[in-house]
């Protein structure tokens, strides 16, 4: 029995899934072969290391985005009873969800624009009969500006909420939020500059909207944190604050 005879079965040998007689034959070879012993030991180490690869914590803002989209889709099947009329929500919780609505709308809008083939509008004749700039670039630029406006509107609404915190936020957490936002604002400025220099750049456009998305995420998380602190839910607040610390 040579190394080549058994090499394709070494993983099954390591996993213990070979028939007993075949496993015994391979065991006999491996014991006598330094190279095959090395391979077997490496495969065992790789398998062991893989088993120890644990979960990965997702970014803190993801739950808020999921919750916002679930709100849009409606609750799962409800039991047959009326919603208590006495339930009240602070106005700024609804503003946060409204911002999530804007975010989803813009996201869908952008996805549709990005995936649709660019088409020239039906009429593209410039005033005075002069040759117009390529209509597809201009049309796309206008739509891009509208999408930016939607994001900026959502961001402004969320910023207004976060600024009305009445000192409920821990100063250290507030500083982290400001630091995260400053980093993202730099990314927005850089992406805008790149897009201004090259309006056709998909990478710059994607980078700009990714930065907008991240900013909305940070602001949504901040609103949620304020909510938890007002409710007195320390563990909930700590969880969201930890997520903010990892986000930028």
């Amino acid at each position, binding site marked *: 029995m040579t*190394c*080549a005879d058994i*090499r*394709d079965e*070494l*993983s*099954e040998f390591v996993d213990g*899934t070979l028939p007993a007689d075949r496993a015994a034959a391979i065991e006999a070879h491996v014991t*006598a*072969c*330094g*190279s*095959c*012993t*090395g*391979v077997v*030991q*490496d*495969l065992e*180490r*790789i*398998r*062991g*290391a*893989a*088993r*120890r*690869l*644990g*979960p*990965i*914590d*997702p*970014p803190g803002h*993801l*739950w808020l*985005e*999921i*919750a916002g*989209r*679930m709100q849009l*889709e409606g*609750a*799962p*099947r*409800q*039991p047959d009873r009326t919603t208590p009329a006495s339930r009240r929500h602070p106005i700024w919780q609804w503003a946060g969800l409204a911002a999530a609505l804007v975010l989803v709308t813009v996201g869908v809008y952008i996805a549709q624009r990005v995936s649709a083939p660019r088409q020239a509008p039906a009429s593209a004749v410039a005033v005075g009969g002069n040759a117009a700039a390529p209509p597809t670039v201009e049309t796309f630029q206008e739509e891009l500006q509208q999408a930016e406006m939607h994001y900026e509107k959502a961001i402004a609404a969320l910023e207004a909420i976060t600024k009305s915190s009445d000192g409920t936020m821990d100063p250290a957490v507030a500083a982290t939020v400001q630091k995260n936002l400053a980093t993202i604002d730099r990314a927005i400025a850089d992406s805008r500059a790149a897009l201004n220099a090259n309006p056709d750049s998909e990478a710059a456009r994607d980078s700009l909207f990714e930065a907008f998305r991240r900013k909305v995420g940070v602001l949504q998380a901040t609103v949620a944190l304020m909510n938890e602190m007002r409710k007195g839910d320390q563990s909930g607040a700590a*969880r969201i604050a930890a997520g903010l610390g990892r986000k930028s």
Partner: protein
Amino acid sequence: MALAARCRQGAPGAFEELYRTHAPRLFGLACRMVGRAEAEDLLQEIFLTAHRKLDQYKGDASLGTWLFRLGANQCIDFLRSRGARLAQLTESFDETIEPDGRSPSPIVAIDRLDLDRALATLPPGSRAIFVLHDVEGFEHREIASLLGIADGTSKSQLHKARMKLRKALASRN
């Protein structure tokens, strides 16, 4: 009340509890199967799909198992949508076993970060099989069913994935 029932009834905090409990493992799966850049969007889709399909959960497996299988299917569908040929792995197996008496084992220790980095270099098909089998503990029969391949293909591709990782990790040491 069971978490699934509370989620279906829209009980406050129920679906968030489901998310907090299972998102880290699912995010790990998504990161390793499709890459970090896409994993955030994919995780959202996994939970939104779970939200929509919760009425289909019959209780024959634990809610976590149902959710994880749904997540694994979403990851595989995502890879397929990106044109990954999961069942057509054409890379030739060029790893050779050195003759007896030559170099000792090249891998001294495997750092988690090194393994995640090496994992990212695998082709999508064999990476998916390695993640499902070695990281998540799926049997070859389950992997074959998920990917639409034969058990034997799953076993051989797992071996190729491990040997490629061995090579990648050895070059780092």
